[in-house]
């Protein structure tokens, strides 16, 4: 099953990419004003994929908490903002970025513990919708605290990642392919983080405990899983993921309130990848990132620009229709 899936993706993904390229190339035959070159196409595609990694970073946080508690954590976006604000604030105090990073990490752990204490613990065994409402509360609370503490003006966050572009494959494509080094570094960090998370959840028994908690609180308690510690762990991990996402996005766009809204971009990623799947969050992010860029540049020629602002949502809607559980989500099959 798994090998078959791998071969499917192995052939399917490059196949689709080339197919789309070929279609564009055909279009140039018909419409001479349409510009297409393979080098250009790949350049945009890669830029889109790197952008997609950034989406994935945010989506990951959602997936973690959803997996563990079945709750859609509305506050994930504000956690990203909060982490970035804290980090910038600490750096403004003159801390080296690494120290600031560590300190922010500690803050996120504290945050996780207090959320569990104050919000989740009293709500054990309550319906998920109640918990969801609680996370909306957390969203505004964090938003408020962050901005009161660190101010609401736009701040820049620089931890020394180079921002220039490099050119690769000059020999293959005319003009080569330009890649932004900042995006590349962030993607690498994202990849490492995903690997660590994968090991954490799949190779350690915490994954099993986590799924158990997500599945049935009562049963999890009855086999001796301490619900509260699991929640603290998960919120901590989600907080750290938010921190990394905050640095990545904050470094790119600057730290400001709109950072909390990139959570909105994570929604289609989740729908595409499935709410419970870590690989789903990655693949979903990549598809949306790449799709957005490619359609913005090439389809924009026909239907006007600003495709980027709605492409992801339309794709998600289509997905909801044909595969509501997402690419990697679990189809819930249950006997009644």
């Amino acid at each position, binding site marked *: 099953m798994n090998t078959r899936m791998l071969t499917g993706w192995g052939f399917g993904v490059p196949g689709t990419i080339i197919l789309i390229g070929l279609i564009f190339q055909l279009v140039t035959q018909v419409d001479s004003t349409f510009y297409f070159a393979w080098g250009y196409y790949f350049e945009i595609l890669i830029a889109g994929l790197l952008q997609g990694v950034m989406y994935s970073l945010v989506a990951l946080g959602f997936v973690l908490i959803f997996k563990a508690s079945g709750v859609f954590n509305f506050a994930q976006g504000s956690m990203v903002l909060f982490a970035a604000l804290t980090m910038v604030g600490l750096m403004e105090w003159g801390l080296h970025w690494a120290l600031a990073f560590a300190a922010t990490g500690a803050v996120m752990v504290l945050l996780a513990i207090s959320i569990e204490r104050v919000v989740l613990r009293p709500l054990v065994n309550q319906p998920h919708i109640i918990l969801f409402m609680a996370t909306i509360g957390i969203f505004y609370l964090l938003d408020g605290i962050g901005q009161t503490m660190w101010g609401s003006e736009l701040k820049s966050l620089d931890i020394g990642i180079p921002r220039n572009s490099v050119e690769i494959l000059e020999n293959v494509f005319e003009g080569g392919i330009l890649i932004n080094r900042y995006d590349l570094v962030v993607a690498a960090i994202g990849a490492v983080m995903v690997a660590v998370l994968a*090991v*954490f959840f799949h*190779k*350690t*028994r*915490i994954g*099993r*405990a986590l*799924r*158990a908690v997500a*599945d*049935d609180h*009562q*049963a*999890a*308690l*009855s*086999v*001796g*899983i*301490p*619900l509260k*510690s*699991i929640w603290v*762990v998960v919120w901590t991990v989600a907080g750290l993921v938010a921190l990394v996402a905050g640095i990545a996005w904050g470094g790119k766009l600057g730290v400001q309130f709109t950072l909390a809204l990139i959570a909105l971009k994570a929604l289609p990623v989740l729908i595409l990848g499935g709410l419970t799947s870590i690989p789903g969050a990655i693949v979903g992010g990549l598809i949306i990132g790449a799709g957005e860029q490619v359609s913005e540049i090439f389809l924009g020629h026909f239907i006007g620009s600003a495709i980027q602002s709605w492409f992801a949502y339309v794709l998600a809607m289509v997905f909801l229709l044909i595969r509501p559980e997402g690419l990697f989500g*679990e189809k*819930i*099959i*249950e*006997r009644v």
Partner: protein
Amino acid sequence: MTNAPRLFNEVLLEAKNISLFFGGVKALSGVTFDIRKGEIRAIIGPNGAGKTSMLNVINGFYHPQEGTIRYKGEMRRAMRPHRAARQGIARTFQNVALFKGMSTLDNIMTGRLIRMRSNLLFQALYWGPNQREEIKHREFCEQIIDFLEIQAIRKTPVGRLPYGLQKRVELARALAMEPDLLLLDEPMAGMNVEEKEDMCRFVLDVNEQLGTTIALIEHDMGVVMDISDRVVVLDYGRKLADGTPDEVRSDQRVIDAYLGVSH
């Protein structure tokens, strides 16, 4: 089974004067009884008699407003469920509480979580020993799978299993905890005759071969009288009678309140 009553002396758990309210509703009032080491103890009574509440008190889901529980010689007022699990109390649920997305094996493995040495947070750091430990626990689970004859569904997601098998998987998960006290909430509810017979055999085997003390709630009087050593009868949250199946069967109040009326 032999008909001569088995004798048990060592008290494993003693509930004293347990009262439990939900708002103004009294679920249990002043219930006192004990569970002795090695026995099969049945709790019976009509619907709403407080049987499940009693189990929930024992494993810490409910905290009684009055009364105490002495378990393994340790007195306490209320227990937290995951503590109870760690101290050897395992249970099943009336409506099957399984991890539906997981396979049978994974469900049973969750029962081993409390037996795993290293702390949840730090175990990620130990690679070699962790692997070995995992194998050791897998072995244990395989023995339970063999014991309950569920080899064929080892890898099946439990959500797809028929109800009778789900109940069996739930029992397997409880057994994986190597409990000292096993609480079974209507283990045979909703089963056909054959499944009931199997379940009876498993309950008896568990008690006999693993030496596990069992407290069970069951509606099927035939089953209760056949397999239990002592029976406590609850009615409207009060204890009505307590004794061997024969004693209970001949108790006039029990006959009036329960056996005679609804069955």
